[in-house]
């Protein structure tokens, strides 16, 4: 079975809410049924087929092709499966995510993993402001840079970065360490063709926070 693909049609001008396009919602539906589904749970909603060309059949792996920064809420409340974003994506990638994996090959805008509880989000390029905001648990990896207020109000969870971000006052520096669990974490990344697979070091600078919310979360900045 090939992955269920949503190829974004050109020349759209609006922000597109993708919260219904998850492995949970689209399991066991045919391409025709998906194209005729409402994009949003509102009256007079556009159809999914208005914006995307749909192909493939395996809803446990969803691929967004030709994706751009106007696709918001990708992976909202997903609990299982995998979403691959070929290109950029908009705000709230993995919002309230409960499991599964999201792999974004381009840039993600603000609030990646906002309120996520479980699962893995990998962004191979840059992420915007408030990355990992209100995070409850789970793992976010951003290979490029992140904007301001990373880990804002995070309770638990891990945000893995390669560049030291600008941190706010309630994130505390816990020093440099070599952590054995990173070997397992990087092994789990091997299922994706991500830039993280090039990293060989398990040495990190550990920041804990957000102290405004217990401070059991962590921002790990890889030292290469």
């Amino acid at each position: 079975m090939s992955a269920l693909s949503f190829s974004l049609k050109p020349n759209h001008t609006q922000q597109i809410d993708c919260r219904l396009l998850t492995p949970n919602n689209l399991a066991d539906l045919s391409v025709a049924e998906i194209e005729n589904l409402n994009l949003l749970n509102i009256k007079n909603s556009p159809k999914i087929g208005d914006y995307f060309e749909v192909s493939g059949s395996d809803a446990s792996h969803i691929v967004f092709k030709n994706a751009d920064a106007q696709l918001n809420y990708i992976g909202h409340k997903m609990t299982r499966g995998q979403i691959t974003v070929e290109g950029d994506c908009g705000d709230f990638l993995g919002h309230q995510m409960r499991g599964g994996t999201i792999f974004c090959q381009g840039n993600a805008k603000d609030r990646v993993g906002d309120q996520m509880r479980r699962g893995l989000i990998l962004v191979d390029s840059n992420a915007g402001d408030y990355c990992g905001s209100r995070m409850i648990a789970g793992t976010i990896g951003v290979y490029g840079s992140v904007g301001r207020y990373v880990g804002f109000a995070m309770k638990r969870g891990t945000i893995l970065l390669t560049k030291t971000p600008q941190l706010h006052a309630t994130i505390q520096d816990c020093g440099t360490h070599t952590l054995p669990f990173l070997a397992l974490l990087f092994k789990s990344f091997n299922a994706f063709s991500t830039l993280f697979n090039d990293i060989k070091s398990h040495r990190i600078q550990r920041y804990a926070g957000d102290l405004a919310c217990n401070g059991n979360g962590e921002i790990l900045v890889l030292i290469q």
Partner: protein
Amino acid sequence: MQINGITIDDTFAEAFNMRGTRVIITALNLKWAYHAANAMTGFATSVIGCGVEAGIEREIDSDETPDGRPGVSILMFAMGSKVLMQQLETRMGQCILTCPTAAAFAGIAAGLEVDQISLGRHLRYFGDGYQTSKLMTDPNGITKRYWRIPVMDGEFLTQETTGMVRAIGGGNFLILATSQPAALRAAETAIEAMKKVPNVIMPFPGGVVRSGSKVGSKYPKMFASTNDAFCPTLKGLVNTKLSDEIESVMEIVIDGLTFEDISRSMYVGIQSICALGDKSGVKRISAGNYGGKLGPHHFKLHEIMGNSK
């Protein structure tokens, strides 16, 4: 039956149902993995006095371990699941958590007929609120939960659970030789060969036991006592099973995950002794049983040595 001049008695080893588990212990290097594993499997020769029987199964290369560090796998057996769970948690806390750089992982994957028991599930509370859990997916796509517990050398990493399976304990054979050094040399030869067999351990010191027991005693409070029929110094006093020339008997006890594993291990051990020939001083191979009434598993020496030839 005779192999290379050594007599194989027409008897059988009697073994019991047990519950078993495997834990993979890794560390910064093999030396410290062994320190942890030796502590974990220490004082675990017999369920009679130790609660569990445990031993090191084999070394594991770093490319085979979950965290890419060198490690060893240990097997642990008990008469029931409750004791096994209790002993595993106690030993994890006192032997693995305390050992510098050591980490512990499940050695038996989840599946049918496999119960999940705590490896680090309760140990995590040592972290006093600073412990963190991580769900990570292995190369086979199976997601497992791990615990990271802050400790003074850095971080203690342990998987939350490991698998517990039905197993067999008490496979054995006896080496009857003309002298103590000859019996010991033969036992060492057998242990070296048997260490290469997977899924089994020989839990006694060096894999060998010299104080085989019989059920009961003249003393009412003792439920096991010396196996007088195989004690060479009592030949003239009891209904001995030893001929005049036998001066020393040593026993190898085997616990394993399946009947076939123990059979294979017994064959490899006995065959390696027989390869030494009767000039080594070994004259007979026998086995310990209780008349077949106590243990449901019977390892018949002639079948094992005959079938596997």
